[in-house]
């Protein structure tokens, strides 16, 4: 990419940007944060000393060109990165101030508190709609039928899917349309009662109407959860996110309130990316 030749140094964002952004609003604490996070895929150094914070009950979008490390970052937040053979991380990732990579913390517990929705909808193909939503609970030992029923009902309602599937709970999970499948996956993630929801380009495989439904959903989800959404669609970030972080080559370049970042970005690199001059 010729851009790298023209930018002398890529300057990471000022860490005070996190405190500064959102001045004048009542905001909760930082639910999750990373401190000098580094991540490798084998020899490939993907994230470089990345320090970023995510405010509770807000939607934070992560944008950046392909290969900047967005997906790797969120996979580090729920300890999914380590499942890849040859993957390595150093640095700290804190959830409510507690280090999630410490030896005393079970990765499985982290993943129950930090849920994830993937790019391509992936409901379990051999299970019905009901079983899909209940999977996270059933396969973790919950047997009480009433509890399961209640959880399925609530999750499907919170994912704005209940009305469409309430009479078809026994239908196969994969018989739904793409947008419905993605909302099913969201319901499935919500059923385990996470505190943080990570979304890796959740709408990129969906048509505009399905996308709009999910974007509407996000604004209601943030009342209860902290949402981090990776997106390559800047307009989507502008529509749904309260805060936006711009990543480039594994470093945080800029962070701020979405309206400010999109109206007058402070870094030239951000400006060039937003106006489509590269990436």
């Amino acid at each position: 990419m010729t851009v790298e030749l023209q930018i002398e140094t890529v300057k990471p964002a000022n860490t005070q940007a996190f405190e500064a952004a959102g001045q004048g609003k009542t905001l909760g604490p930082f639910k999750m944060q990373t401190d000098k996070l580094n991540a490798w895929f084998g020899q490939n150094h993907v994230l470089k000393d990345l320090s970023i914070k995510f405010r509770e009950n807000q939607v934070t979008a992560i944008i950046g060109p392909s290969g900047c490390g967005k997906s790797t970052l969120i996979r580090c937040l729920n300890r999914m990165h380590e499942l890849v053979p040859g993957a390595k991380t150093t640095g700290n990732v804190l959830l409510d101030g507690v280090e999630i990579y410490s030896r005393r913390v079970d990765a499985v517990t982290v993943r129950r508190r930090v849920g994830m929705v993937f790019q391509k909808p992936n409901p379990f193909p051999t299970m019905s709609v009901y079983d899909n939503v209940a999977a996270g609970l059933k396969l973790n030992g919950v047997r009480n039928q009433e509890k399961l029923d209640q959880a399925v009902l609530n999750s499907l309602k919170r994912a704005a899917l209940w009305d469409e599937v309430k009479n078809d709970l026994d239908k196969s999970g994969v018989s739904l349309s793409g947008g419905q499948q993605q909302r099913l996956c969201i319901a499935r993630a919500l059923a385990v009662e996470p505190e943080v929801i990570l979304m890796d380009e959740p709408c990129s495989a969906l048509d505009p109407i399905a996308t709009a439904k999910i974007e509407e959903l996000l604004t209601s989800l943030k009342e209860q959860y902290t949402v981090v959404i990776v997106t390559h669609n800047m307009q989507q970030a502008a529509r749904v996110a309260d805060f936006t972080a711009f990543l480039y080559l594994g470093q945080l370049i800029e962070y701020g309130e979405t309206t400010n970042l999109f109206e007058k970005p402070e870094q030239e690199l951000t400006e060039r990316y937003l106006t489509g001059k590269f990436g």
Partner: protein
Amino acid sequence: MARLMDMGLDRLRSMILDMAGLSNNTVTTAIDAYEQGKDVRTTIFGWSEELRLLQDEVSELAVELIARYQPVASDLRFIKSCMEISYGFSRFGRYAHDIADVLGIFGDLSTCDKSMIHKAGDQAKTMVNLSIKAFTERNVELASKLNEMDDIVDNIYMDFVKKAAHNPGGDLKCTVSATLILRYLERIADHATYVGDSVLYIVSGERTARK
């Protein structure tokens, strides 16, 4: 790397430049004609109307670009400012039109003292010129200079009005017509500073408070 939107932005820019040249001419012609007592109403009316139509076109193009390309950052600021600046240029035309109208209403004003008008008129003409320059060069220093010059025109206007209010007498026709002209010149100066503000917004994203 040329983007799809660049063509639209270039068209927008050239339309603004057209308006700039036209409004400059309009203002200069109107002021000079007043001082010389010439009747240029038809020409000025024609140009002013052209400016209004151009402003509509700029507005439409700007909205089309926003709808199509969903621009952000400097592109968005530029398009937004173009809408404001085109409005400012159309206002130049409108006030030039009003200035040209005064002679038509009052008839012969060759006996009136036009020194104040001459001063203010020179300032206004320079300011229109400078505002156009600020836009084409994206020059923020010129923008701040415009603020200083605006104060001068404001003072000329205020002084004249206060004097006329406390010392009634003298030729009523001259007083009223001069008040009107100075008022229009003051508004032209104000809009020239607004153009300067828009240029500042394009370059840095800062917004200055309107006085």
